[in-house]
């Protein structure tokens, strides 16, 4: 009996560890979902076909596209970018992951609900930007209590065009994280 209980305990612990690993936030992704993955790789991981209408648009020249999907039971918004790897030949690659699930945490426990100062302390040696409002690519959404904390890796901080550059963005309300976004600026594969 004791052996059976121990067995189930070990199985349960392994499942929990595997689940936690699925939701680990890092500079380059969320669990197995990694920035830089091709659309096909993401489709294989999520086990579903992703419709990206903009990528087929050759008139408006829209290079980016987003899709709202489920990853390991959590809602994610994925952003893809057209990436040329040869003249006139491209694939869509994952350059952004947005989510707000409290299941998602960094290895040091930063996630939804974390206080701003804890984020800053956790990333003490990296480039940290704090801005009022929610800072997006082209605009900032202002509002009482809103702020954005961005953590840039060295390539992003120095705008190194010859390396992949990653940024982890936390959106806060009244100094507490409510959602996050992982962004990548990928080097040109033609280089």
């Amino acid at each position, binding site marked *: 009996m004791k052996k059976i209980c121990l067995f189930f305990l070990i199985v349960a612990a392994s499942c929990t560890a595997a689940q936690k690993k699925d939701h680990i936030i890092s500079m380059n992704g969320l669990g197995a979902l990694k920035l830089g993955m091709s659309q096909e790789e993401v489709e294989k991981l999520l086990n579903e076909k992703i419709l990206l209408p903009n990528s087929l648009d050759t008139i408006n020249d829209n290079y980016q596209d987003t899709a709202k999907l489920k990853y390991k039971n959590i809602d994610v918004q994925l952003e893809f970018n057209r990436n040329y790897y040869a003249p006139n030949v491209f694939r869509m690659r994952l350059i952004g992951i947005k989510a707000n699930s409290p299941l998602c945490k960094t290895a040091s426990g930063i996630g939804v609900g974390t206080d701003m*100062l804890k984020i800053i302390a956790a990333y003490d040696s*990296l480039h940290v930007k*704090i801005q*009022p409002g929610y800072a997006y690519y082209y605009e*900032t959404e202002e509002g009482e209590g809103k702020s954005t904390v961005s953590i840039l890796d060295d390539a992003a*901080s120095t705008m190194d065009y010859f390396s992949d550059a990653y940024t982890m963005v936390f959106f806060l309300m009244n100094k507490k994280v409510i959602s996050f976004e992982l962004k990548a600026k990928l080097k040109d594969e033609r280089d």
Partner: protein
Amino acid sequence: MLVTTTTIAQNKDYLLSLDGIGSLKLGMPLLELEKVLKTRITLKVIDVDSVVLVETINAKYKGIDVEISLWKRQDYIAVDGISASSPLCKTKSGIGIGSTKLQIIAAYDGYHIDAKPVFEYEGDNKPKRIKTKSTVTVKEAEEGYAIIFNLVNNKVVSFDILPIYDDEE
């Protein structure tokens, strides 16, 4: 009473803000700068070389060493940057030489803050973080006047006050 008034006046002279130190202000024309510094400034580059529009001078302001960047605008020369490392200079909330990154961040709640390591570039042009050095830049908006605090081992050792516009960062 006299001692208190003198102390308040001295503190005001060294008050560090986004637009300057005490009565030393960004954008101040050269003539006004000379009045504040109580000295005539002899330029060696601006107005000597017609192509060069910027010049940096070292001066004394109320007994402290300052480095002042001057910029020739269309019809006058003005202060475009102020640097110093005197412990007398403090912000209203007491931030100055010796302050830490977290103290600066706490003091400037609601501002744009950019805290980053300092990098050096090696032979292969790859950036390498200098472990002991960092800067914390504070601005009221995306662009405008800023204070850049220079830190060594997480403590402010000097600061620069200057205007920053998007393409300059």
